[in-house]
């Protein structure tokens, strides 16, 4: 059970536009997305930037920002809701770039897949906290923002060991009761995912 070096731990790519795309949509869970687009993409390919700017006065109005069109959203939920509607009318040739914490980028990936996008059409860049979303394999509750190797489950209260095994579908790491074999035998809790 206590195996490390698991291969299903996702690897993330540094942010860069994919020159083969015909239009680019960058979505970020923070206000200042990357400004450097890397190698210049196909000259006329439109670029759009969506970001989250937690502010009750924010509207999703578009503004021109150099080559790119920008929109700000009040929350991650607001952004994801709009993204769902946007993808429903998008065309093949689009590339999506998600930049942010792990749970956010995988929420974006899940939406992209819902509309038939596959590897090579979306790119995920991890930025910000290493905090993990943990799925309790016993009671199925999620525990958010986990920073320690062992965490108490938000659902059943068990001490869960956070394994490196990651489910892209659930966008969460697996949590397994650490003292299952010897009740009460819980190792020292350490800060692991700052």
């Amino acid at each position, binding site marked *: 059970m206590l195996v490390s070096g698991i291969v*299903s731990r996702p690897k993330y790519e540094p942010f860069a536009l994919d020159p083969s795309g015909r239009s680019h949509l960058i979505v970020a869970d923070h206000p200042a997305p990357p400004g450097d687009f890397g190698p210049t993409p196909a000259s006329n390919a439109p670029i759009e930037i969506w970001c989250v700017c937690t502010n009750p006065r924010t509207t999703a109005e578009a503004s021109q920002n150099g080559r790119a069109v920008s929109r700000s959203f009040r929350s991650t939920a607001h952004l994801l809701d709009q993204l769902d509607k946007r993808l429903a009318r998008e065309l093949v040739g689009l590339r999506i770039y998600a930049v942010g914490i792990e749970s956010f980028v995988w929420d974006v990936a899940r939406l992209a897949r819902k509309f038939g996008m596959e590897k090579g059409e979306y790119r995920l860049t991890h930025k910000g906290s290493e905090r993990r979303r943990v799925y309790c394999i016993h009671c199925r509750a999620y525990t958010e923002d986990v920073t320690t190797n062992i965490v108490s489950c938000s659902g059943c209260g068990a001490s869960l060991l956070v394994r490196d095994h990651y489910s892209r579908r659930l966008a969460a790491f697996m949590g397994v009761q650490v003292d299952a074999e010897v009740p009460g035998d819980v190792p020292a809790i350490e800060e692991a995912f700052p």
Partner: protein
Amino acid sequence: MTLAFKPAETFRKDFTYRNSEAGILRFPFPFAEDTYMYSVNIEPHLPGGPSPAYDHAFDVDEHYVAECKERAIVLAEDPNRCKVLPHMTEAQWDTLELIMESFAKDYPEHFSLQKNGTRWSWENRPLGLKDSFTFGDLSSLPYEPFEYITRQAQGDFTLQDQRDNNLFVDGGMVTTQADWSLEFDIGMTFHEWHGPVPLAHQLGVFDRALKFLLRLQYGQPVRRLNWTMTINPRLDTSPENYPVWGPDRNTVTPENVAQKVHLRVELQTLFRLPRSNAILFGIRCYLASVAELARVEKWRKRLHRVLRDLPPELEDYKGLTRYRKLVVDYLAPFDDGAPLSRGPQPDQTIL
């Protein structure tokens, strides 16, 4: 040999599961040599080989009825153990056809299938089932086709969709697993799914296996063996129920080790499915206690040598840490170190 089922056997609580003498001798013992390491040990799934367990596409043995009952118990507690993603419907029908046709052909005294165009009648005598349905019409069966037929088969099954030069675990019936979760893993690629397996990635085992499986042809199934150990004859050693079976590992003593510790062998079979182009992966679990295996002279010596020399990463991954030494100590007096014949066959026909 006619099959005598043992419908009252249990795989939980009082654990009354036992192998008959014939059952022991047909056990698919996995060790052809005195040491064990991962390899791409894939071979054509053709009848024949060192155990009659390989004689048919899907082996039915004396534990058939009891295992189907055990599966029903697990599903009643946790329906998520069977899950198929929506794009796999075609593969569900493929699976139903493959298992029904194989059973009816290989065990005509127990199963029969009558087809009249798409109107099919299925009879499963050991479980007392008789159903007529329309092939291709989901509403004509009491469960979805994959669940319907895998409730009537021994062993776990997963469905792999092939796309983008990869295989995705997009469905399964998983109630007799060695510590992996369908609910968690569904939708993963081949490499992600095997993520927790140590050493094998570095050896390139999964890269080669994947390339091979992508070219698997309809009508040419393949098989391989895998193994681990389990305390008590417990089929459901799922991560979901780890708190239920984990404590068993501390109950092993020098006195009960031979009865408690079981070798758990997975006969893995892979079939290309014709309509969906998906791959059906059968993971059939066989259990035999150390005491049962020790009745075969060659096996007690070989099992001793393999466990004694097992690499530490594998000991950890297979969860043997707490009791491997007890098994080795139990078997050591039986092993005189004499050379053993190559291959896993028992080299004796009676016990």
